Every structure is written in C-alpha cells, then in structure tokens.
C-alpha cells in the first residue's frame, strides 16, 4: 500500500534568519506543486495565498503520563482543517510546511506528528530544517537557548546569508553548528537560495532512510576527525565567545563562564557486534530517564546474530526502531549512534553503549 500521508516540513530559525524569504520562494517558484503553509504571524509572507494559514503556537502537555509529551494544539486543529480540503483518493497538498517563530521549541511541533492519532493518520513528519544567519548566528547561539535547540534538533541546517560573512567566520560557525548537531548536513546559502529538494522530501524521520551516520562529525573524546572541528569552543580552549566581537559582559551565556554549549551531539561507535536485548533495554532506560534532555537520536546497530541492520530514531522520549535492510557483504559492519541533547553525561552514555557489546 502506498503511503498517502502528506509530508510535513518544519522550518525553524530566529527572526531575520531568512525563513520568510525561503517560504516566499517555495510558494512562488514554478514547481507545479501545491503547498499549504502554516505560519505564526500573518503579514510576514509577502504574497497572497489562500493556503497560508495562521497558527498560534498553542503548546500543551498531554495527560498521558509522559512528562515531556508536549504537543502543539494549534497544529492538530489546523491539520484537521486542511484535511477537509482533501478530495477522495487524492492528497489535498503535496506538502505542508510549518513555520515556527524564533522562540519556538521544535520538540512539541515534531511530537505532535507522533502523538496525535488523527494527525499521524493523515500526515508524516518529513524533516525539520533550521535556518541560521551566518553573520549573527554566533551571538544568537550564545544568548538564546531556543536558537541552540533549533540547531540541535534539525535534520538539515541552512547557513544563510553567507555573502555577509568571511570564509573564516563561516568555517567557525560550521564547526560550532556541527558540535551542536553532528547529524544534520549544513548547506550554505545566500538569500535562502537552496534548491527546494534540499528542504522538502528529506525523509528525516523515516527509519528506512537512515542510510549512514558519520560519528566523526561529532566531537568525541577520541578526538575530532575533521581538523579542528572538535577544538573550537571546547571547554579548555583559550578563547571564548567574546572573541566574536559580541558584547556579552552581562550575559554569561548558556553555561555560565565555561565555554562549551550546553547542548551537544555525542557520537558513539562500536566495531564489535551488540547484544540486541541489552541494547534495547539500555536505550529504553536512557530515553526514559534523560528523554527530556535528549532532543534527537539516531543509530544503526549491528546486532549479534542478526543479518539486518537495527535502526532507530528518537525525539525526546518518542522512540521508533526497526530492523531495516540486510547488511551488504562488502559493508563495514559496525554500530554507530548519535545522541543530541543538553547537559548529557557523555562518559556515562558512552560506557552504557559500549557495555551492550555482545
């Protein structure tokens, strides 16, 4: 049976990062597709389109005992309304795009698409794309928890307005973004001029599409693999955020006076096969205890005695996992996983992961 659910793309990014420019491009480009756009403030979008819908970031907690299960009530309502335009046998839209405000937590947006039964039946979360502004992102990451979370949560990061920054600045930004989120590819853009296939149809939450994970992107205790990627903004490095020319004398930043971001990605890998039962139990326990702090997780696990790859992805405490395709004969058969979250105990997570070796 083909999946008739409508893919949903979430765009995050603080004010001025270029979301509106990108949305206007999506709506006006000659692509023959029909998109519905859910925005938070009317009037920002420059074009008149009856499929631009206002929403009000109505976040609430589910009463289901899951402490971090916050969802967006407005999205449930708006998606239900949009589905009424659906004709029998034909999707009403090629995609739905949700724009969030600069202060939005992407967690509840994403969770809505996993928790609400009606929304889940009609739509599927495709990906979360974060736009950041090359010139100002460093300052935003210093002073805004939401900005750090948006980057950490994303499946893809668009580094926009690269024409306003020097190559050295761009490299520094990319290194910091990669530490916050080792999973998301970073795409450089000017005036949000990324190809639309780099934003839409990414299948970021689709277990079948977890093809590869590159643990070397993350800062790991075994040392950065990409030049100085693990070196910048390290706890022990000699410079701090003030070097970027922003005045933060009254704002000690995300973690007081130490210089690492409170959020980071932890990359794990193991060449030995893993015990499937032990790994699953460990993962369940980790998400149960630390799920509030874990924004995203993804992994490909080599389970002992299993010819197929065990893949998983998680948003806070919401975990999806399945046996995927078979390992290819020529493929390096190893386990790797990335956990992105705030204030994570990297040593403990690494020890727990490696403890699952068969």
């Amino acid at each position, binding site marked *: 049976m083909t999946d008739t659910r409508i893919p949903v793309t979430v765009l995050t990014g603080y004010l001025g990062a270029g979301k509106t420019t990108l949305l206007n491009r999506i709506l006006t480009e000659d692509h023959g597709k029909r998109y519905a756009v859910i925005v938070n403030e009317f009037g920002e979008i420059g074009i008149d389109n009856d499929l631009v819908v206002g929403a009000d970031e*109505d976040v609430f907690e589910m009463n289901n005992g899951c402490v971090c299960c916050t969802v967006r009530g407005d999205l449930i309502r708006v998606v239900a309304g949009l589905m009424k335009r659906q*004709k029998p046998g034909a999707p009403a839209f090629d995609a739905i795009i949700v724009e969030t405000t600069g202060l939005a937590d992407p967690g509840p947006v994403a969770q809505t698409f996993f928790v609400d039964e009606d929304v889940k039946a009609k739509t599927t979360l495709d990906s979360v794309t974060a736009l950041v502004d090359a010139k100002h992102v460093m300052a935003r990451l210093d002073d805004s928890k939401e900005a750090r979370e948006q980057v950490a949560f994303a499946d893809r990061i668009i580094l926009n307005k690269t024409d306003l920054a020097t190559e050295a600045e761009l490299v520094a930004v990319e290194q910091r973004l990669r530490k916050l989120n080792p999973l998301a590819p970073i795409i450089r853009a000017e005036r949000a001029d990324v190809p639309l296939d780099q934003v839409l149809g990414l299948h970021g939450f689709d277990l079948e599409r977890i093809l590869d994970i590159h643990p070397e992107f993350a800062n790991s205790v075994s040392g950065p693999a990409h030049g100085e990627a693990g070196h910048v903004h390290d706890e022990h490095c000699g410079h701090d955020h003030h070097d970027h020319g922003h005045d933060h004398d009254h704002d000690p930043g995300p973690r007081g006076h130490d210089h690492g971001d409170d959020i980071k990605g932890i990359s794990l890998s193991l060449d030995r096969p893993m015990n499937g039962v032990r790994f699953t139990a460990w993962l369940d326990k980790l998400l149960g205890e630390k799920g509030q702090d874990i924004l995203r997780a993804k992994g490909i696990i080599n389970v002992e005695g299993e010819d197929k790859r065990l893949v998983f992805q998680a948003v806070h405490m919401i975990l999806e996992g399945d046996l995927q395709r078979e390992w290819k004969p020529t493929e390096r058969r190893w386990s790797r996983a990335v956990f992105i979250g705030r204030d994570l105990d990297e040593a403990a997570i690494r020890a727990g992961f490696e403890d699952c070796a068969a």
Partner: protein
Amino acid sequence: MPTFTFDAQVTSAHFDSSGAVFALGDGSVRFEDRTFDAVHDGAILCAVVHPSGDGLVTGGDDGRVIWSRKGEAGVLATAKGQWIDSIDASAETKLIAFSAGKTLSVIDATDAGFRRDFQHERTVSGVAFDPKGRRIAASTYGGAWLWYARIAEQKPTKLAWAGSHTGVAFSPDGAFVVTMMQDAQLHGWRLKDAKNMRMGGYPSKVRSVAFMAKGRLLATSGAQGAVLWPFDSSNGPMGREASEIGFDDTTLVNLVASANPHSRLAAGLADGRVWVADPAGQGLNFIKADKGAPIIALAMSPDATRVAWADEDGQAGVADL
C-alpha cells in the same frame, strides 16, 4: 436508499426541515434532492442546522458564517483572516454561536444588528448552547467557559480541568457539561456544584457524543462499541460504570448520532459500516453492512426515522429505518 458520490470530503451530515444535508470540504452544501449551494471559498469546517430548521449555517476556512437554503445563501457574519472552527445554534432563542481562534461570537438569526464577541485565553475548540439557548459552553485548553449568550459585559464561569478539551456538549436537562479531551477521555461537570466527573477508559480519541433516551444516556464514540454513560440521576455517571453496545474488536466506533428524546442510536465505524440499535432492544441493524473507508459524518433525523452517513472516500447515503 439514496446514495451520493461526492468529489470532496464531507465535513458533517445533518437533517433540516427538508431532509438530509451534507456540508463539504469543497465549500458546498448539498441537499438530499441533489440541489446544492457552492458557498464558501475554501473548506467548510463546521455546520449546524439553522435555528429556523431551514437549511444549514456553515463556518469556513474563508472566515465566513453562511446560511444556505436551497437555491439561496447569505453571509451572516465574518471573522477576517481566521477560520471558523466550531458552531452551534439554538432553535429556542434563534441565536447562533461560533468560534474563530480565541473568540466566541454570538449572532441572532432574527436580528442582523446583534453580535457579541467573547474572548478566551486559549483557542476555542467547540461551542454548545444549553437546552434553553441562553448560555453557551466553549471548550478550550484547560476546561470550558460558560457565557450568557446575550449579555455584553460579563465574567464567564470557568470550569477548569487540566488538559486539552476538543469539544463540548450540554446535557438536555442543562445540569451537566461534558467535554471531549485530546487524550482519549471525557470530562464532565455538574453545574450546580462544579463537581468533576471523569469518564475514561477509551482506546481512542472520542470524536462525538450524543445524548439520547430523554437525556438518560450519553452515547459516545472512541471504543470498539458505542459507550453509554448513565445520566438518569442527579449524580450523572458519578460512581457508575458505562455500558457498551455493538462491541466488535476488529474496529472502532468513529461517530455516534441520536435524536433525543428518542432512544435510537446510530454508530458509524472506522471500517465503513453503519449500524442502528435501540439499547433496550436486541441486536444491531446494519444499514450499511459493506466495509469501506471510515465513516466521517453521521446524523439522525429529529424524529429518529432516518440516518445520513458519509465516508472518507466521498460515498454517502440516507437510510430509512
């Protein structure tokens, strides 16, 4: 049995004085005699029979509230740039209540100049008149608010209960307010003392509730059968168990419909079937026995002799019982 194939999603089914009427996602209102009005520039999100019993009042994603009768239609109210999310009407007072965003608005079918707007802290998900048409309950996140329909300046009565309430109904005696909740349960309040009633245990979200049998029973969807809560005492269902009829663990009841004070109940199932039953009688009468797309609209005529249904694929029908 008249059947219909619509090229659009059906939002809801109704019976007005002329027969069955369907409100559609393409913005049209379709009468049983196949006349139709294309009224909204967009989808119809909610609809109710006009207080006169003649035609439908519909709310659309074009921000309009429109009264459609056969061959004529007129805009009754607008909410610029907003969706009309919910609507109700009272044949007693001829008032119409609708919500757009956080605002509940009241208009008078007999007085075009009358309008009241009441603000809430969160988005309104459902509106319902009390049986006399004097008060309105509005469900929102965190509970339900009660307003006097005609009074301009007032403080609403707030019935608080944590969680997201997605729709609301008044009991026919006006003694209870019941809300549907996001997390697969109902909540109720006895108005005289604001006592809370929790009605849970559902495997799925409850999409519809219907009082029946002189208000002695509240039928609901959301389970493998139609769930019936007793409302035959001043305590309502407090401390009592619900019963279930038509249990079938291969499917779920998506919608229920009744015609209080009659005792007949109709249920539309997720597997496309529709049955009618009398809780005091025996067995289910399947008026649509073929399985198919989920039933998404269901209505019973006021005299409980006819049922209108529609499924997700645009198939619809009207059955005589």
